[in-house]
């Protein structure tokens, strides 16, 4: 079993997606436990993979026994295994959370919802484990297509937002495919390991430079990196709350992972750092992304839309860490992928829970919400503090490494920009927290003798609260264990030449 874990992690959700329809036609209520079981199996196999990688090193899995340059090979090193654990764990937690909110928002489409949900997880995990550039394109499109469908079943302008995402996302995927084609013309190979050995002799060829540009732009579209982010706020705002929580936490992070792979595995680090000034350019765009995201988040009155802009800023953080191109910076970036997945999943789940209970997302309507939903708002506050970067939470630790990276790279402006954007996100979140906790209590009617409005506690259901609190526990403990995570996993994921 364990030797086939790399393929099982993809095949299990893929096959279950089809069985899910049959089970759903027979007994609808069975879908939810079935999906939970499948995703738990994914979590177990991804943890088993991570354990194997930590103990025995990189796993090479040959699909169908074909040897690498010809057949498709799945290569799992520390970075992949780490990402697989994040994605499968977050998708399990969000699936647990989904029960009540899906019943309320999409009561007739539960069966199809879970089917597409499993396909999305298949795509994301496939992108992570594959070691073949064309295979990666296929999985990228599986994940994106599932994403389009899931976003389109949301409320209000969701179909329109999803359509925009289809158009832009397809351009991104096609650019990636073109990049793969150019690499294939000059090398005749599609295997990542093989390509990374063949490419160095061709680094000055214009075809390779163009291929690199196409690959980077394609991935930047998929991860909503700053100038190419326009599809994200609409799509993630109108999507069903469960879907927002899943895609916000995983999709952009997987994009960031692909970017790291292309820059440091497919191409040798010195190509992306010295031959082309990619890292310098990325660094400056990332700073703009951080500032832009935070400033636009301030202007939003819709909680989910505000979180979307924060997400764009967070993508900026990750890319900034990558652009330092030193050990500290990249460690910070990879750690931030983990932390941000938890923070975003938590924040979007809280937004979903508020939607579930009061049916509104406007920040103005949150007055005294802490009396009605004390636990949910407590979770929101902790996740918000983590995004800002307050010490015991995990957000602080990744920002710490990012700033250390900036200092190592002697990029003082970037270090200052990191702190300024933290302050900006503090303003963004304290606006919400102030509105909820510190607004003065208003008398209901003046003639009522000025009695205060009585607000009864009316919490979100337990099936939502427990996943939210698991994520909060993650936010609080991941920070404390970040040293262990770095020494066991991340330090091996950073290229040795750094």
């Amino acid at each position, binding site marked *: 079993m364990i030797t086939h874990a790399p393929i099982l992690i993809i095949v299990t959700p893929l096959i279950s997606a089809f069985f899910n329809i049959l089970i759903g036609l027979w007994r609808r209520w069975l879908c939810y436990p079935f999906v939970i079981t499948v995703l738990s199996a994914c979590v177990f196999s991804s943890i088993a993979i991570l354990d194997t990688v930590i103990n025995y090193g990189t796993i090479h899995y040959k699909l169908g026994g074909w040897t690498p340059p010809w057949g498709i090979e799945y290569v799992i090193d520390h970075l992949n295994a780490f990402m697989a654990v994040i994605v499968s764990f977050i998708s399990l937690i969000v699936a647990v959370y989904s029960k009540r909110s899906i019943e309320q928002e999409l009561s007739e489409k539960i069966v199809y919802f879970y089917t597409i949900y499993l396909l999305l997880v298949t795509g994301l995990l496939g992108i992570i484990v594959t070691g073949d550039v064309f295979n990666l394109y296929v999985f990228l499109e599986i994940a994106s297509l599932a994403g389009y469908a899931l976003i389109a079943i949301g409320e*209000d302008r969701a179909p329109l937002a999803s359509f925009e995402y289809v158009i832009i996302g397809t351009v991104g995927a*096609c650019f990636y495919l073109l990049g793969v084609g150019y690499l294939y013309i000059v090398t005749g190979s599609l295997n990542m390991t093989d390509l990374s050995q063949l490419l160095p002799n061709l680094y000055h060829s214009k075809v390779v430079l163009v291929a690199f540009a196409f690959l980077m732009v394609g991935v930047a579209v998929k991860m909503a990196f700053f100038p190419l982010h326009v599809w994200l706020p609409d799509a993630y705002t109108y999507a069903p709350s469960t879907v927002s929580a899943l895609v916000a936490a995983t999709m952009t992070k997987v994009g960031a992972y692909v970017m790291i792979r292309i820059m440091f595995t497919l191409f040798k680090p010195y190509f992306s750092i010295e031959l082309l000034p990619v890292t310098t350019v990325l660094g400056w765009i990332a700073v703009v992304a951080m500032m832009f995201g935070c400033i636009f988040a301030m202007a939003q009155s819709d909680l989910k839309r505000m979180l979307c802009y924060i997400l764009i800023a967070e993508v900026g953080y990750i890319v900034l860490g990558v652009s330092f191109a030193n050990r500290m910076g990249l460690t910070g970036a990879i750690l931030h992928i983990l932390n941000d997945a938890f923070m975003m999943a938590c924040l979007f789940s809280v937004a979903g829970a508020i939607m579930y209970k009061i049916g509104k997302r406007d920040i103005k309507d949150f007055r005294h919400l802490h009396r009605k939903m004390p636990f949910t708002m407590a979770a929101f506050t902790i996740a918000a503090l983590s995004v800002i970067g307050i010490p015991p939470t995990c957000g602080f630790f990744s920002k710490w490494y990012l700033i250390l990276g900036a200092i190592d790279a002697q990029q003082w402006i970037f270090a200052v920009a990191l702190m300024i954007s933290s302050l900006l996100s503090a303003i963004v979140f304290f606006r919400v927290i102030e509105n909820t906790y510190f607004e003065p209590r208003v008398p209901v009617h003046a003639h009522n003798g000025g009695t205060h409005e009585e607000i009864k506690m009316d919490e979100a259901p337990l099936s939502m609260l427990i996943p939210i609190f698991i994520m909060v526990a993650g936010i609080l403990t991941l920070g404390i264990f970040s040293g262990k995570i770095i020494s066991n996993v991340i330090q091996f994921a950073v290229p040795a030449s750094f």
Partner: protein
Amino acid sequence: MGTIEFIISKYNYWIYVLLMMIGFYAMIAKRNLVKKIVGMNIFQTAIILFFVSTGSKKGASIPIIQNGHGDVVSHAVNAAQYVNPLPHVLMLTAIVVMVSTFGVALALIIMIYRKYGTLEEDEIFEMSEILRLRK
């Protein structure tokens, strides 16, 4: 080599670039949603053309080994005689992906049409404003 000769000798790539730009233009500039996805389809087809044309060779035949029946191929295989089949195989997969993208886009268009009663972008935005205000 003169410019004209350079253009003619690589005509397949020029056509691919031209088609891709036509598709790209339609996706960005057209206000009608159906025209947008037609543009998207042209854009994707251009990429198929690019891949397929990279596999071709002058004077080569289809990639089936001649006299290759039986257990062992008795003669050396000269790769120059055969068209490279791999780009074609890749494009089979890519076509499947593109068809599904097209299908999803069409389904979305049906959803949009049911909601707003039009497929012109400007009118949709007007309609969605009206719907929002009515709430």
